[in-house]
């Protein structure tokens, strides 16, 4: 067998995490991107900067603060406890929360760019053709931003697969629960199992390349309106 059972388990867990996070990001990121693309509010700058923070922060900083906020004495931790949900750190859903923040810019920015590229005009046209703002969003803005959504989904998924620092901080290293592929590689290296580390690393490398190729390779010139 090319990969061990543990390795395959970590890969499946990674894929499950990335899929859940990407779906949540589509739901959360789209309104944020729409707002950022069209607002003239003075909050646009600050909100845009906060969304972009994970791009430049060490993942350990993000993980640290999430640990504090979600922990037993943190505001969110108290809330989840009082709701009977228990504590999120060192659980799968704790990882999901951390990953959503960590991958947020990879969803918001491509979608925001796509919305901005559409501009005001097609929505004005839709309005003069009798489409309400929601109707125009669903039938004009979403289809025209399609390529942006594809890019955003692929990048968010891939970025979640590739995370390490945040996972280590708030997920720990629990097999089958929070031990994702990147952590599994780390474990192999710690245990001097370079051969195992290499096999898993190659899988990750091929995956990452295939993903990026699909994004960059599919960019064609858009048709003129």
């Amino acid at each position, binding site marked *: 067998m090319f990969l061990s059972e543990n390795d395959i388990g970590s890969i499946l867990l990674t894929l499950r995490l990335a899929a859940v996070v990407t779906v949540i990001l589509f739901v959360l990121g789209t309104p944020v991107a729409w707002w950022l693309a069209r607002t003239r509010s003075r909050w646009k700058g600050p909100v845009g900067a906060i969304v972009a923070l994970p791009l430049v922060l060490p993942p350990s900083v993000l993980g640290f603060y999430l640990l504090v906020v979600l922990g037993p004495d943190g505001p969110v931790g108290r809330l989840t406890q009082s709701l009977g949900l228990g504590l999120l750190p060192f659980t799968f859903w704790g990882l999901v929360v951390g990953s959503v923040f960590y991958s947020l810019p990879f969803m918001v920015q491509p979608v925001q760019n796509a919305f901005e590229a559409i501009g005001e005009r097609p929505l004005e046209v*839709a*309005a*003069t*053709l*009798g489409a309400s703002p929601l109707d125009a969003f669903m039938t004009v803005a979403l*289809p025209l931003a399609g390529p942006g959504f594809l890019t955003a989904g692929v990048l968010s998924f891939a970025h979640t697969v590739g995370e390490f620092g945040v996972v280590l901080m708030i997920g720990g290293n629990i097999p089958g629960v929070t031990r994702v592929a990147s952590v599994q590689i780390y474990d192999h290296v710690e245990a001097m199992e370079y051969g195992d580390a290499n096999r898993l690393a190659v899988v990750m490398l091929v995956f990452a390349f295939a993903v990026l190729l699909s994004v960059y390779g599919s960019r064609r010139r858009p048709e*003129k*309106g």
Partner: protein
Amino acid sequence: MIEARLRLVWPGFSLEVDERLPAAGVTVLFGHSGSGKTTLLRCIAGLEQAADGFLTFKGEVWQDARTWVPPHRRPLGYVFQEASLFPHLTVLGNLRYGRDRSRRRHREGDSRNERVSLDQAIELLGIGHLLDRKPGRLSGGERQRVGIARALAVNPRVLLMDEPLAALDLPRKQEILPYLERLHEQLAIPVVYVSHSSDEVARLADHLVVMDAGSVLASGALSDVLSRLDLPIRLGEETGVVIEGRIVERDARWHLVRVSWGGEGVWVRDPGGADGRTVRVRILARDVSLARERTQGSSILNILPARVIGMGDDEHPALTLAKLTVDGAVLLARLTRRSCAELGLMPGRPIWIQIKAVALL
């Protein structure tokens, strides 16, 4: 009737308008860029919201202190300067987009109260062979024709057009103008048309609104506004009038037709087509000269008796504009002040006019 009292202030620009536009025929909003004509049109469509505004259409309030009808609830068609077709839909998809929504809005199951049907819009703009294409595969002129058909397919009560020809080169303009003239002749939908081209004004306008720096300088029937002597807006070489008449006589030998209004008329090149139809001729002030007696032995075909009704300043101190009437139609003539003095021109005076060139529109 469209009644608009609008005030809108932006940095470096303000619009202040109190106008009644006829809800019939073609009303052209004419002016240079920055004159506010497009902004006024966008206010009528509801794409721009004047903070201080009152707008009614045929008695329906679209905007006042308490009411704001959003653009998608206004029964209008809008043609943008660039066709702005939806690139993800085919031509037919574009046409249906507005069609389906306006149907749903009015629950018009049958087509009895339709002012224009989808088929009619397709036929009128000559786009039947393009229906399956994506906008990216159309020429500029074809795209704008689809844009116009799409606005018509909404079955609008008023059609707003924002310089629909300005983004096109001359051959494309010539391609589309006849379609606009057909709209004018065949549909009863009132049109408000923004333009800075005196050629489009001459060919399409029934009612002309001249705008400058965010306000209205003049508004009225086309021939009244064009022949005003006090209008600060100068058309330069294009100064002139448009007269509507009927083809009453055809000279087959010399390929000429006589376009007549009242009893008088002018001979122009035969455009073909049937006798009796209504056409427009454009006569520029620089092509009209005056004489005390009817000249003999002249190459000029159109020599008509006229009466002076006023004199006005022209753009150069050496020049003056004479306003004349020929059987009810008003013409302008550009001449030097010296000639004016030598002829002894004054209001009420009969005079012969010689028209060097008449353009049939």
